[in-house]
């Protein structure tokens, strides 16, 4: 007995493409599970690069259906459901099950005993009561949450959603009664630990953003992908897990650690599965170059790779050149690079492409950029800074460059805050009306009635229509594609040693000349601390390093002790990190030797 859909025997690829640009992503899955049920959608590679798990389109849809049934028993429509999943294919079934059941998914990094704070804050902020996880994770997580505010979470095992192998999608599965402006999931990448902000991404946002990427990069069911980004990160989720469903392609996934440990396994997978699309943050290319080992790359052919995405972090010209020089003999073409720009508040994708062209670069004067926010030609070799263009934006997304203080639109050589308007802008921050109004409902001076989303990124649109990113308006530090809030790190430093309590501290980053970003902590010392430093500065620095890596999983590149007179503060006593950075870069920061 075949299932009926549209009373048709088949749909053409064009019909499916059009439908996929309109249906919620779970509807696209049902359509494809009907149209090409036995095609492999996902293959997962283990840490040796061997195939360890698969999903066909129909199998995934059946598992998603079973998850929906499980969630309907355990929760109500509109409830938030938190998803604790290690790398693997179970996550995507759980996530889409939430969307199908109209529960709001909350994907999150697996907490460890040491780093549980942020997780607890997110559980509190989102108001989740039900957690979904693989069975073998649940007792460990319960132990971590014991006697915390999350101890009352109720748990459901993903394995309890048992797929019915005889179930086939029906037409009704596409047209479920869904207001596509309902919230599909909360992406917690914004906000400090003490003040997490959940970006409310709607069903319509997802459909729209996936369609934008598909069309601007000319993707379809033949453009297979290899991805290793974590699924709790917006790039890993939207690009790595949802885009394949809408494209109808075959996508090969691996764990982030598999890539970091042996980058050659990523390149092997691209070659073996003839991937057209693969990428990651800039550090992925850096690492693949650093760990180049000809012995491990025998026989690989990267000529299939047409779109090497580079996003979620600063895109460095030197990294692209180095990678190209090393991998050109293996078939990698320089025009494969697609530097891109995006953020969770815009669902993910903002700009990138067009594909198949050399990367756009602009040489400009670094001093004018930093000090006057102007794009001018380099005044000297020393102040020359090379920026990489992060692509053009889709036709239905407007990029405005705006003075962040006056809200005035800037002329074409002006550097300002990037403001965005279009159908992929998220609905706001979960239960945070004020932050939502500030970020998502900005208006350009003299242009009332039109809302823009403020990205907090500084940049400009070049004469080549490329979006160029120059830095952050706020002090956010981006490390290997991960957002870090300096106030969180400063807070940890102040608590790590009795001598540092009530001392002020400024944590800031800068673009190192050769080796990429450096993160610096400047700590105020008074006379008492100076005495301590003479005796045990090593001990103190070790304590700081230990605490920061422990709490934030990141290394400080430099720890400086500075006298109170050298700390830049506002009249209300808040540290001014950007002024500290300026003084540091100019070599004017007074440092106490010890």
């Amino acid at each position: 007995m075949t299932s009926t859909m549209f009373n048709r025997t088949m749909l053409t690829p064009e019909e499916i493409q059009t439908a996929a640009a309109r249906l919620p992503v779970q509807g696209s899955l049902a359509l494809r599970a009907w149209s090409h049920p036995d095609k492999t959608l996902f293959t997962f590679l283990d840490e040796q690069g061997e195939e360890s798990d698969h999903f066909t389109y129909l199998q995934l849809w059946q598992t998603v259906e079973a998850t929906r049934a499980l969630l309907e028993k355990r929760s109500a429509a509109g409830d938030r459901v938190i998803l604790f999943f290690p790398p693997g294919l179970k996550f995507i079934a759980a996530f889409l099950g939430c969307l199908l059941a109209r529960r709001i998914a909350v994907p999150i990094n697996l907490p460890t005993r040491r780093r549980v704070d942020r997780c607890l804050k997110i559980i509190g902020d989102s108001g989740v009561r039900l957690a979904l996880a693989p069975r073998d994770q649940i007792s460990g997580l319960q132990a971590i949450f014991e006697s915390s505010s999350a101890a009352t979470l109720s748990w459901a095992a993903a394995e309890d959603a048992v797929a019915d192998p005889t179930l086939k999608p029906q037409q009704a599965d596409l047209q479920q009664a869904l207001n596509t402006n309902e919230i599909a999931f909360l992406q917690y990448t914004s906000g400090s630990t003490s003040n997490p902000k959940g970006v409310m991404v709607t069903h319509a946002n997802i459909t729209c953003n996936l369609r934008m990427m598909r069309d601007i990069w000319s993707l379809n069911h033949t453009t297979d992908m290899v991805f290793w980004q974590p699924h709790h990160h917006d790039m890993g989720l939207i690009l790595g897990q949802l885009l394949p469903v809408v494209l109808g392609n075959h996508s090969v996934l691996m764990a982030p650690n598999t890539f970091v440990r042996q980058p050659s396994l990523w390149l092997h997978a691209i070659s073996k599965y003839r991937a057209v699309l693969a990428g990651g943050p800039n550090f992925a290319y850096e690492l693949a170059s650093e760990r180049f080992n000809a012995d491990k790359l025998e026989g690989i052919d990267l000529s299939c790779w047409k779109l090497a995405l580079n996003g979620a972090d600063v895109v460095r010209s030197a990294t692209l050149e180095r990678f190209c020089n090393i991998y050109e003999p293996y078939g990698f073409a320089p025009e494969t690079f697609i530097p891109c720009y995006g953020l969770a508040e815009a669902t993910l994708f903002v700009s990138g492409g067009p594909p198949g062209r050399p990367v756009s670069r602009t040489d400009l004067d670094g001093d004018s950029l930093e000090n006057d926010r102007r794009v001018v030609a380099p005044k000297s070799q020393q102040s020359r800074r090379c920026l990489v263009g992060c692509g053009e934006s889709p036709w239905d997304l407007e990029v405005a460059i705006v003075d962040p203080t006056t809200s005035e639109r800037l002329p074409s050589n002006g550097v300002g805050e990037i403001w965005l308007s279009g159908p992929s802008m998220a609905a706001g921050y979960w239960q945070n009306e004020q932050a939502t109004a500030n970020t998502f409902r900005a208006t350009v001076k003299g242009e009332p009635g039109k809302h823009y989303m403020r990205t907090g990124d500084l940049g400009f649109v070049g004469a080549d229509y490329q979006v160029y990113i120059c830095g952050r308006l706020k002090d956010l530090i981006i490390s290997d594609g991960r957002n870090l809030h300096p106030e969180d790190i400063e807070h940890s430093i102040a608590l790590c040693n009795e001598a540092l309590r009530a001392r002020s501290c400024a944590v800031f980053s800068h673009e190192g000349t050769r080796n990429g970003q450096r993160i610096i902590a400047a700590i105020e010392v008074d006379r008492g601390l100076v005495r301590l430093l003479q005796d045990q500065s090593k001990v103190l620095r070790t304590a700081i390093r230990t605490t920061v890596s422990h709490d934030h999983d990141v290394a400080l590149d430099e720890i400086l002790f500075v006298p109170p007179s050298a700390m830049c503060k506002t009249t209300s006593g808040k540290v001014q990190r950007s002024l500290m950075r300026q003084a540091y870069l100019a070599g004017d920061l007074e440092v106490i030797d010890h």
Partner: protein
Amino acid sequence: MPVAIDTIDAIEKRISHFIETDLRVPADEIDPGANLGSFGMSSVAAVKLVGLLEDEFNKKLSPTMVYDFPTIASLAKAIAAVEPIRRSA
């Protein structure tokens, strides 16, 4: 099987070098007996280090080794005891 001291020494040197260059800890602050966390070793850096040591010493190592042997000295000793991968001729 006894492990050659020079191997342990070479592994220790490689780990220290990684801490110096990747984590930017001054050489005189690197104590082989100290916990790796005290050098600011993040989880990503730990996985990176394991991969590097796998390549350079031709061994298959478990990514959790860094947590099971959390000092330079103990990690080097544990790695030295792992049999190298035999090349199939």
